[in-house]
């Protein structure tokens, strides 16, 4: 039987409709309905420098899908990792914890199976879960509790191979002749999405690219970027500078010009595969209900201060490309956020998006309020920590504190002197301002902040 409405109710309804239409795109598309649990896709690449996106103003890189993702979501301009190295940062993403808590200090320290992952909590909350891609933490493959599908690789101690990389699919080693790893992992990811479309799911998709050695896929032409200039790189990026100081494994053999272009092609290849995932979500009609987060484990110095590495406490290493799209949950999509978010924030944010409580052991803070475009002051500073990853990389242990304006770096057990930077200079080339009048004025507060964080670290807070 059709429901009857009084005139008052009719007018009230019309008013609400009018108000709703006036608010229009400022609200999530299903703003007033009780939100159902969203699907969550977290895509993590490897060594993708934060500003190597078309939308970030790179002079020639093409990342149309990531640009689209940002235009339909929120682009975080101040996203950082708390340790700029593969294994520690990956462990921080998946646990929501600092390195000094999860224990994966560098690429040599073994993952502790007592660590709880965000996937484990999601499973408890009713999600179907998959981890597909690069695990790359030392030691045997983990007992990933709460993961329904675990597709990874162990070749080259977890670094994997670009071509023909054998996969470990739910514990079974499987040859993958004739495949390219970024595409192959995306295939598995899409298969998982198709299987799970009727349930809330969380897909953790971790790519090997664009990590070195820079071996490009067949579907990216070797002519791409061939004619482009590298004039935008720092002066120090001469043809052989990436092989100075014994660092021949960071970017491999060859000239900087060739390697840098290959690196950018790899980023474009990741973009291409992300486009496939986005298209599949559209095709299945679940894009609006799906949170899609893109980030990377750490950045990369490409010649700043003569380094081609990620193991330094500079913005080029710790700053991340970070994009969140969630059509049903983001207010005012297509904007940038200047709030400082960290890799450790991803796990608590995912849990909040899923309507689940954040466990007390997580160090991160949910950035959900930023997605809702609420006035938020997530943090004013954070601790960066680095545990040496020797050899052949000769970067010492580091404790650093990053505020919105300054970065203060202390090298531990080393003859290297502390450094202080105005972060506005970090984008070009780090210039130490410690001995300048500005530096001397700022230094006491930065030292106090760092000491505060170090005390928290020491006392297990």
């Amino acid at each position, binding site marked *: 039987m059709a429901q009857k409405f009084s005139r008052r109710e009719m007018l009230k309804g019309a008013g609400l409709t009018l108000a709703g239409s006036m608010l229009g795109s400022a609200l999530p598309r299903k703003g007033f309905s009780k939100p159902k649990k969203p699907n969550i896709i977290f895509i993590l690449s490897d060594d993708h420098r934060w500003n190597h996106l078309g939308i970030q103003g790179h002079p020639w890189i093409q990342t149309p899908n990531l640009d689209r993702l940002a235009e339909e979501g929120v682009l975080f301009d101040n996203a950082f990792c708390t340790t700029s190295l593969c294994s520690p940062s990956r462990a921080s993403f998946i646990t929501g914890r600092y390195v000094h808590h999860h224990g994966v200090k560098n690429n040599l320290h073994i993952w502790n199976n007592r660590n709880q992952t965000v996937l484990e909590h999601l499973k408890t909350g009713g999600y179907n879960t998959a981890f597909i891609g690069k695990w790359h933490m030392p030691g045997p493959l983990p007992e990933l509790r709460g993961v329904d599908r675990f597709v990874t690789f162990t070749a080259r101690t977890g670094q994997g191979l670009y071509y023909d990389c054998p996969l470990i699919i739910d514990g079974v080693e499987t040859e993958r002749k004739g495949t390219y790893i970024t595409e192959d992992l995306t295939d598995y990811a899409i298969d998982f999405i198709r299987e799970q479309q009727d349930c809330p799911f969380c897909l953790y998709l971790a790519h090997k690219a664009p990590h070195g050695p820079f071996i490009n896929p067949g579907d990216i032409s070797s002519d791409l970027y061939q004619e482009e200039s590298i004039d935008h790189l720092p002066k120090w990026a*001469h043809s*052989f500078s990436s092989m100075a100081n*014994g660092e021949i*494994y960071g970017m491999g053999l060859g000239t900087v010009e060739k390697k840098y272009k290959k690196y950018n092609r790899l980023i474009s290849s990741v973009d291409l595969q992300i486009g496939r995932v986005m298209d599949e979500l559209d095709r299945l009609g679940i894009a609006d209900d799906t949170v899609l987060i893109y980030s990377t484990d750490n950045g990369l110095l490409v010649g700043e201060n003569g380094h081609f590495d990620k193991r330094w406490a500079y913005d080029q290493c710790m700053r991340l490309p970070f994009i969140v799209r969630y059509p049903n949950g983001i207010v005012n999509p297509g904007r940038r956020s200047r709030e400082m978010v960290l890799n450790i924030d991803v796990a608590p944010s995912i849990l909040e998006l899923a309507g689940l409580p954040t466990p007390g052991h997580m160090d991160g803070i949910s950035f959900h309020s930023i997605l809702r475009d609420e006035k938020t002051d997530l943090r004013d500073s954070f601790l960066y920590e680095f545990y040496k990853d020797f050899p052949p990389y000769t970067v010492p242990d580091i404790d650093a504190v990053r505020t919105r304006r300054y970065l203060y770096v202390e090298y531990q057990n080393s003859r290297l002197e502390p450094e202080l930077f105005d972060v506005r200079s970090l984008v070009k080339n780090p210039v130490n301002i410690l001995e300048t009048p500005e530096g001397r004025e700022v230094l006491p507060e930065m030292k106090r902040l760092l000491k505060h964080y170090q005390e928290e670290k020491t006392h297990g807070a």
Partner: protein
Amino acid sequence: MEHNTSIRKSDWKPAVVPVSVAVGIWLFLHFLYEILGLIENVSLYRNLASINWILLVISVGFSALVVYPVVFFRGASKRICILAVFALPMAWSVKEFIRVSATVTIAESLFYVLFTPVQILVFVGQVGLIGVADIYCRIRLKQRKEISRVMGPVPLSAIFLSVLILYFVLIRGGGYDFHLAVKMIYRSLFL
């Protein structure tokens, strides 16, 4: 007539000048590399620094091809010739040791100069180059009719051994397998 290759321990004199020149050229290039950083013009800096880097690699990695024959034909024994060849790589290693010890412990710095791939490439490379240089010297001696046979098992073995090790360090798995092996050794020793 066979060239005198007997060991003359006291005969360092023929090696002093060639070794000094080789080390001097390397030091000059090393400091020049630092000074080039003062150049503001990006294109000029990059071009000069690239050339300088190539010359640095040649001076450290390939000096054996010059030092060995020069010292040899100045009348030094083969032992002196070999020691002369390793003088420059040793000096370079000391420089690397000092550089690395700024950020890690003395024991780790020692590990670095003994086991990391670039160090091994330089030292093992010298072994093969000594073999090549020795064959070159023997060709010259044969041309002077001072010896009758150019090829011998020692220089050929040196070249073979060098190429074999370089294959494992640099080529097999793109050098990554050796890199990982070194890291595993480091982990067992230091962590």
